[in-house]
């Protein structure tokens, strides 16, 4: 028999016991819909976790003692992590180290070094009962970023008036400031900001404005970009070439290493160099590795949800097995007759297997239709757009195909091995 004939035969069989077949198809459909739904949610979740975004390759370097990520990671099961010998010397993240890293690791495109600071303006009124010196809602508080000048161009900020400070200015402790658009309007309304002084209450420190940045427009949030929020706040920030709190020290808390290419091994290359030169006193972190660690932690939960969601499809597959066995039993006599009339074992085997596969695949298609109908619901649940991807669709169809194949083989073998003479004797 040809394939088309086999297919027509199996459709006829499904039609003759329509209710039964429909029930199987619905069962498989629900199983596939659950898997596709959970898969869609996982994919929507992992999109926020976008590991392929180029910014995921960025590596940060900090002294192990300054790494507080462990504390914010409340899922950690141990109360302490070792940091090595207590009297080991701390490796300072200085401009000299930056130069050394740039020479030694050719994959590095740029190294950013910056720190967030903040101070109140000199002569600002101080309310009674005030315990803190700096507050975001306070018009006299200024957000500062002390750092190498390359951070400004890296963030995509452009100069509107004046100039940026140079690395020489930075190394020579020049009190220069490049101010954001909103800061300029707030501090120097209807004046030329260039050359003006900004005086702080801390230690009589002051900065000279040498440049004003263009206004940064509001953008759509990009959750996988670690610099998004900083870029959004640039209008309200002041870049400084001097650390107003530590005029002498020139060491940073953290270095940000930007790779030249999208080589995913970048973190490993940096780590190899750091371990060889400085032992385990510096932590090398990449956003990608952090995310992978988080995924690793979430694994027990994901496995639990995954197995629970595949349970429905498995139950539906058992249903196929059960009903196909019942059908073979019921049609023993007719199979015996077909065999006696010259139909081969192979033919009967394929007939029954194809019947299971048709049931499974129709169920799979029904499941995908169900999940497409339900996708607005899923989207509202995830609070974003989560339409089913073709990958998930194929995967769930593949699952449906696979289980109906696996659980269809045994009934098909059973049908094929019916002995015509004894089957014909059956009443």
């Amino acid at each position: 028999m040809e394939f088309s004939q086999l297919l027509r035969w199996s459709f006829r069989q499904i039609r003759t016991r329509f209710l039964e077949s429909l029930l199987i198809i619905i069962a498989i459909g629900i199983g596939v819909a659950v898997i596709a739904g959970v898969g869609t949610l996982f994919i929507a979740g992992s999109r926020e976790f976008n590991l392929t975004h180029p910014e995921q390759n960025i590596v940060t370097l900090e002294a192990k003692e300054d790494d507080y990520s462990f504390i914010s990671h409340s899922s950690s099961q141990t109360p302490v992590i070792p940091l090595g010998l207590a009297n080991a010397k701390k490796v300072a993240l200085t401009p000299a180290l930056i130069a050394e890293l740039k020479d030694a690791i050719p994959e590095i495109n740029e190294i950013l070094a910056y720190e967030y600071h903040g101070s109140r303006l000199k002569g600002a009124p101080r309310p009674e009962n005030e315990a803190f010196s700096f507050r975001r809602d306070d018009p006299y508080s200024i957000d500062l970023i002390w750092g190498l000048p390359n951070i400004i161009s890296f963030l995509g900020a452009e100069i509107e008036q004046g100039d940026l400070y140079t690395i020489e200015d930075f190394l020579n402790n020049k009190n220069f400031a490049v101010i954001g658009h909103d800061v300029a309007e707030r501090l120097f309304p209807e004046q030329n900001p260039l050359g003006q002084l900004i005086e702080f209450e801390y230690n009589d420190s002051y900065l000279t404005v040498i440049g004003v940045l263009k206004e940064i427009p509001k953008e759509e949030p990009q959750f996988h970009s670690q610099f998004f929020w900083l870029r959004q706040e640039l209008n309200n920030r002041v870049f400084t070439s001097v650390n107003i709190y530590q005029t002498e020290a020139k060491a940073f808390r953290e270095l940000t290493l930007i790779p030249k290419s999208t080589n995913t091994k970048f973190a490993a290359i940096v780590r190899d160099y750091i371990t060889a030169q400085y032992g385990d006193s510096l932590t090398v972190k990449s956003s990608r590795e952090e995310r992978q660690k988080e995924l690793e932690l979430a694994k027990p939960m994901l496995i639990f949800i995954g197995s629970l969601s595949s349970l429905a499809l498995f139950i539906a597959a058992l249903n196929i097995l059960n009903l196909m066995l019942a059908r073979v039993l019921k049609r023993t006599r007719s199979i015996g007759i077909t065999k006696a009339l010259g139909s081969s074992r192979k033919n009967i085997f394929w007939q029954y297997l194809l019947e299971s596969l048709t049931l499974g695949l129709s169920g799979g298609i029904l499941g995908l239709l169900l999940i497409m109908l339900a996708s607005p619901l899923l989207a509202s649940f995830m609070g974003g757009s989560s339409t089913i991807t073709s990958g998930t669709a194929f995967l769930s169809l593949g699952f449906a195909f696979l289980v109906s194949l696996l659980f269809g083989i045994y009934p098909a073998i059973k049908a094929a091995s019916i002995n015509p003479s004894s089957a014909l004797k059956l009443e």
Partner: protein
Amino acid sequence: MEKLNFIFRTIKQKPLRFLLTALQISLGVLAATLIFNIYFGFNKLTQRSAQSLGKELLKVEIYSEFVYDNGVGRSMGNHFLSAESMQELIENSPEIISATPINSSFTMLVVDNMLYRAMGTYEAGAAFGKTIPLDFIVGSFYTETEEDECKTVISENMALSLFGTTDVLGKTIGDKPFKEAPTTFYLITGVFKKPPLVINTMIGNMHMIYTPKYPSSNRFINFIVRTTPEGQQKAIEDLKDLIFKECGPEAIADIKNASESLNEIRQFTDIFLKILGVLAFFAVVVSSIGILSIMLVNILERTREIGIRRSLGTSQRAVFFQILIESMVLSLGGGILGVILAFIITCLFNVSNIFAVFNEIFALPNLGFNIEAVLVSLALSCVVGGLFGIYPAYQAAKLPPVEALQE
């Protein structure tokens, strides 16, 4: 009785079919039992916690609000109660027994010249031990007179991580807020067990409590108040009055008792239980479809037999109930199998631990097997069997005997 005999005979005739159907049901019931078990176990645990301490502990946070570009923010630290005014309140109000500030510190520890980053470290005076009930394995909380002497109590987990043993009384732990800072050594006076869930929810993970270094640690910004069980409401009013008097109208006091704190985290775990519940529900639905289809096949195969029984005088009603009971027995059999499977899984794996991936607070011991979960699941499988047996039973009952005999 005769009906049951009949059902068992039909089951014996087709053992494979019965087994497969029971397996389908059992997998659905397994999923349901696991979820019910987590739900009931977690409920019991939180209720027990809240009953013991819910009427005695209050968590207070003083903050003020400010508006910025992206919404309203909370700023903490601008307003606080001084240690003196708190002391006065404790003396004047009979409802308030004691109070302690909760100051978590970011610090590093030194033990045997090794440096550690530590989690769950708090600076607190002896009032901490009086306010928060801790269960000590060895030693006890430091007293008021020892407050100036650099004493500390640590958790069992901390003792095991740092020293490998809980026999650590008299040993010292060094404290370094940053690497260049001098080390201050603290003498261990006690090792406490992991506190109950409700304490962890109100305070956070606790691993080390040490005597305060700076006077500012005695400010009451984020603090726990212990009240008499009857006087909680009065205590809340007293606290609100005092905060208004001391901090002014812009200070907001967020006062929660233990049950309210627990409900906050319950919202979080309940979302996940709901998702898991939906998945389990689908598994049960699919397995009940399995029952429906196999019962339809069953009556089709027995058309002749039903015809004979009808013509020998069995009523429609009797046939209906026979098929219905058969479906329920099948389903209940699967249900029992499912409960047994769930029992085995609960014994082998700590399923109640699944939330621990989100927060160490949920690293719970195995909550065990709940009889409620078993009863609900078995009832569920019975209902499913009954519900999905109705249609096949109705089909069987309305078969005209003469036509059925002609088949």
